[in-house]
C-alpha cells in the first residue's frame, strides 16, 4: 500500500485520530470541529473530498471541500467559511461517509469471506491527499479507540514479550453493509459476487434478518441461486418468502432441480404453487416430478439433469452433445446409455469417451454392469454403495426399472455430512 512517489512524505493516519480534531483559522483560532469525512469512491483507494464539521458552539453539521485545507497537522488549518460558503451536510451520489457508514459497523471481507466489525479506518496522506486504504478490524484498533493502545502494548511486552500486530483489510476487499444503498454502490465490481457461493451462504446466514434480506436482494439472479443452494434450508425459506413469485421463480430456475425441489417442498403450499406457475414449463415439470419423492430417500436426493443418449450414438456425437448441454447438466462425468423410455443399457464415463475412437458407438463402449438404487432406497444403503464402489454418481430406477434420476456426489454429501457432524 505504500505508494512510492519520488520521495514525497507519506503518513499513515487513523480516522479515530482525525475525528473531533479542532479546525483552526490561519492564525490558530478554533472555529469548528471535525465530525466526519466524505470520500468519493474510486479504485483502488477512495480519496477524501470533503469534511463534515460543526461550528464552535453549534450543533448543526455543515460541509466544506477538502481543497480548502491549508495544513493537516495537530489541528486542521482552514480559512473560515462565511455564511454562504457553508454547504449543508449532504452526501452526493458516489460519495461515502467514513464514520457514519463504516466506523463500528459491519462489513464483509470478500477475500477472507468473513463478516467483521470495523474498529478504525486506516488512511494514507500523500502531499495533501488523504486516501482510504484499509479497514482496521483488529484488537489494536479497538484499543486505540478506547485509548488503551499504549497500556496494552506495555502489558503484552512485559508479560509475554509479544507485540500485537494490526489486523487490516485492504479496501478493495471490503463490502460495506450498513445500509441497502451501500450494497448498490457502483464499486468497480460487485464484490459479494466474487465470493464462493458456499462462503457467501455462510455470510448470509451470519447476518441479522434485515441485512440478510438486503444482501440477498442485491445479488444478481445467478449468484443468488448459487448462494441459495448452499444456504441452510430454514433461511432459504425465509429469503424466498421475501420475494415476489416472479423474482423467486427466476432464481429457482437457475438452481439445480433437486435443490429447487427441496426448497419448494419446504415452502408453504400456496407460495410454492405460485412460484411453480411462474417458472419455465419444462423446469417446473422436472421439479414437480422430484417433489413427489420423500426427501430422505433416493428419490429426494437425485437430480433429473443427467446425460443420457441412445446406444447407437457415436463418441463424437456424444461429446458434441455434452458440449452443448454441459451448462444445464448437474453432472457430466457419467453418460447413461438409455432409450427414450428410460431403459438403462449401460454407462460410459467421460474418461472413456475422451480416450475412445470418435466413430465408436456407445453400445460398444459402455459398461453394462451398472450399480443402481431404487427410488425408495434408504440413505444408509446409498452411502454404503458409494463407499464400496467409489463411484461419482449412482442412477436411480423406478419399479419398471427405468432410470428416473442420478444421485451425484453433492447428493451423497447430503447423506454423509450429518454423520460426519457437518
Amino acid at each position, binding site marked *: 500500500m505504500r505508494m512510492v512517489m519520488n520521495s514525497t512524505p507519506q503518513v499513515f493516519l487513523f480516522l479515530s485520530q482525525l475525528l473531533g480534531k479542532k479546525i483552526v483559522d490561519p492564525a490558530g483560532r478554533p472555529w469548528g470541529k471535525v465530525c466526519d469525512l466524505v470520500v468519493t469512491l474510486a479504485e483502488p483507494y477512495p480519496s477524501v473530498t470533503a469534511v463534515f464539521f460543526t461550528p464552535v458552539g453549534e450543533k448543526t453539521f455543515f460541509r466544506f471541500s477538502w481543497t480548502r485545507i491549508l495544513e493537516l497537522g495537530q489541528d486542521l488549518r482552514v480559512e473560515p467559511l462565511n455564511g454562504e460558503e457553508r454547504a449543508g451536510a449532504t452526501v452526493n451520489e458516489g460519495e461515502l461517509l467514513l464514520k457514519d457508514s463504516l466506523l463500528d459497523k459491519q462489513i464483509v471481507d470478500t477475500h477472507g469471506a468473513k463478516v467483521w466489525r470495523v474498529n478504525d479506518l486506516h488512511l494514507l496522506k500523500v502531499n495533501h491527499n488523504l486516501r482510504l486504504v484499509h479497514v482496521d478490524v483488529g484488537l489494536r484498533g479497538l484499543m486505540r479507540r*478506547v485509548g488503551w493502545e499504549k497500556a496494552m502494548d506495555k502489558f503484552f511486552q512485559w508479560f509475554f514479550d509479544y507485540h500485537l500486530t494490526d489486523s487490516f483489510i485492504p479496501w478493495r476487499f471490503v463490502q460495506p453493509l450498513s445500509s441497502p444503498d451501500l450494497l448498490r454502490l457502483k464499486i468497480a465490481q460487485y464484490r459479494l459476487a466474487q465470493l464462493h457461493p458456499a462462503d457467501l451462504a455462510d455470510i448470509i446466514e451470519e447476518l441479522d434478518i434485515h441485512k440478510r434480506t438486503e444482501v440477498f436482494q442485491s445479488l444478481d439472479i445467478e449468484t443468488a441461486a448459487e448462494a441459495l443452494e448452499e444456504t441452510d434450508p430454514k433461511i432459504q425459506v425465509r429469503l424466498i418468502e421475501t420475494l415476489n413469485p416472479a423474482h423467486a421463480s427466476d432464481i429457482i430456475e437457475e438452481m439445480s432441480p433437486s435443490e429447487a425441489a427441496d426448497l419448494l417442498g419446504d415452502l408453504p403450499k400456496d407460495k410454492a404453487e405460485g412460484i411453480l406457475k411462474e417458472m419455465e414449463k419444462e423446469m417446473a415439470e422436472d421439479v414437480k416430478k422430484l417433489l413427489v419423492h*420423500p426427501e430422505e430417500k433416493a428419490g429426494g436426493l437425485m437430480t433429473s439433469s443427467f446425460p443420457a443418449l441412445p446406444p447407437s450414438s457415436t463418441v463424437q456425437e456424444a461429446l458434441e452433445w455434452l458440449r452443448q448441454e454441459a451448462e444445464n447438466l448437474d453432472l457430466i462425468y457419467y453418460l447413461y446409455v438409455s432409450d427414450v423410455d428410460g431403459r438403462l443399457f449401460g454407462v460410459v464415463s467421460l474418461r472413456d469417451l475422451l480416450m475412445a475412437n470418435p466413430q465408436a458407438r456407445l453400445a460398444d463402449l459402455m459398461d453394462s454392469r451398472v450399480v443402481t438404487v431404487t427410488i425408495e432406497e434408504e440413505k444408509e444403503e446409498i452411502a454404503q454403495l458409494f463407499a464400496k464402489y467409489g463411484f461419482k454418481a449412482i442412477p436411480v430406477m423406478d419399479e419398471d426399472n427405468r432410470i428416473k434420476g442420478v444421485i451425484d456426489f453433492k447428493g451423497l454429501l447430503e447423506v454423509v455430512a450429518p454423520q460426519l457432524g457437518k
Partner: protein
Amino acid sequence: MPATAAKISRKGFWKTLGIFFALIGPGIITSNVDNDAGGITTYSLAGSEFGLTLLWTLIPITVALIVIQEMCARMGVVSGKGLSDLIRERFGAKATFYLMIALFFTNLGNTVSEFAGVAASLEIFGVSKYISVPVSAFFVWWLVVKGNYKSVEKVFLVACFFYLSYIISGFMAKPDWAEIGDQLFTPTIRLEPEFLTMAVGLVGTTIAPWMQFYLQSSVVDKGLKTEDYQYARMDVIFGSVIVNIVAFFIILLCAVTIFQAGIKIETAQDAALALAPLAGKYCTWLFAFGLLNASLFAASILPLSTAYTICEAFGWESSLNRKFAEAPQFYGLYSLMIFLGAGVILFPDFPLISIMFYSQVINGMLLPFILIFMLILVNDRKIMGNYANGWILNLISYLTIITLIFLSGAMIFTSLR
C-alpha cells in the same frame, strides 16, 4: 405438496410438542430464568427480614419490568439486531468497551450466585460443595459446549413448575389476606441502609441487566416480522407478570412463616421453611430441588448469554457451531465465567446467602446506566422508524432511572454514615 404431507405424518408427536415449545416465547423463558438462585434468595430475604413491608414494591417493579422488556423486544423485532450490537453501532467502541467490562463483572457476580445456589441446595442433602460445585460446573460447561442444549432447556423449563409450590403453599398457609392487600398498596420507605439495599436488590433481581440483552437476542433469533410484533409484546407482558406473581408468593410466605417465627435466614435450610405449609417436613427437599433447578438453568444460560453479548459487540466469532480455535474469544469468555464463577465458591466458609443477595444489588446499580443507553436507542427514529417510544413509555422509563439512581445513592450514602 405430497412431500410435505409425508413429512408431517412422520414427525407427528414430536412436531406437536415442538409447536408447543415454540409458543413459549422469549419472554416466558427469560422470566423463568429470572427466578434464579439470586431471585429466590432475595425474595426470601425480603420477606423474612422485612415481613410484608416491601410487598408494595412489586407493583412498580412489575410495571417497570414490562416497560423495559417491551422496549427490548420492540428493538429486537424492528432492528433485527441484538442490544449490544445496537449499542456498538450507535455509541461507538469506547462506550461499548466500558459497558461490556461492567456487564462482564456484574454477570460474573450473578454466575457466582448461581453456583452458590447449587452448593446451598445440595448442602441440604449433605453433599459437600467441593463435590457439587465442580461437578455441576463441568456438567453445565459440557452441556452447552458438547451436548444438545436445546432439548435440555426444555427439561429445565418443565422443572420450573416447581414455582407452583410457592403459590400453593401460599394459599395453604392461610395468611391474613386483608393485611396482605393492605401492605400491597401502602408504600413504606425507611431510609435505613438495609431497607434501601433490599429495595435495590429487589429491582436488580427482577430487572437484571443481563436479561435485557438475553431477551433481545432471543427475540432476534425468533425472527419475527415487524407486523407480528404484538405476539412478542403479549409474550413479554405475560412473562413479566408471572415473575412477579412468583416473587409475591415467595415474599409472602417468608413473611408469614419465617418472619413471624423470628428466624433469620442464614442457610438455604432456613429459607426452605417457607414451604412448610405445603410440604411439611419435606419442605427442605422441595426447596432444594427447586433451587438446584433454578441455579443450573441460569448457570447454563447466563454465562453463554454474556459471551454472546460481548462477542457480538466486538464482532468476534460467536457460534457454538464453531470449534474452539475458530471462536477463541467466545469459548474463552464462556469457560472463564464458568471457571471463575464456580471457583470462587470453593473458598472455605464462603458466604453463600450473602453472595446470592449482593450480586442482585449490583444488578440494580448497573441497571440505570443500561436503561439510559436503551432509552436513547429506542427513541432514535433512524433505528426504530415509526416504532420509537411514545411519551408515556419515556416517562415511566425516566422515572425508573431516577428512582433507581436515587435508591442506589441513598443506599450507599446511608451505609457509609
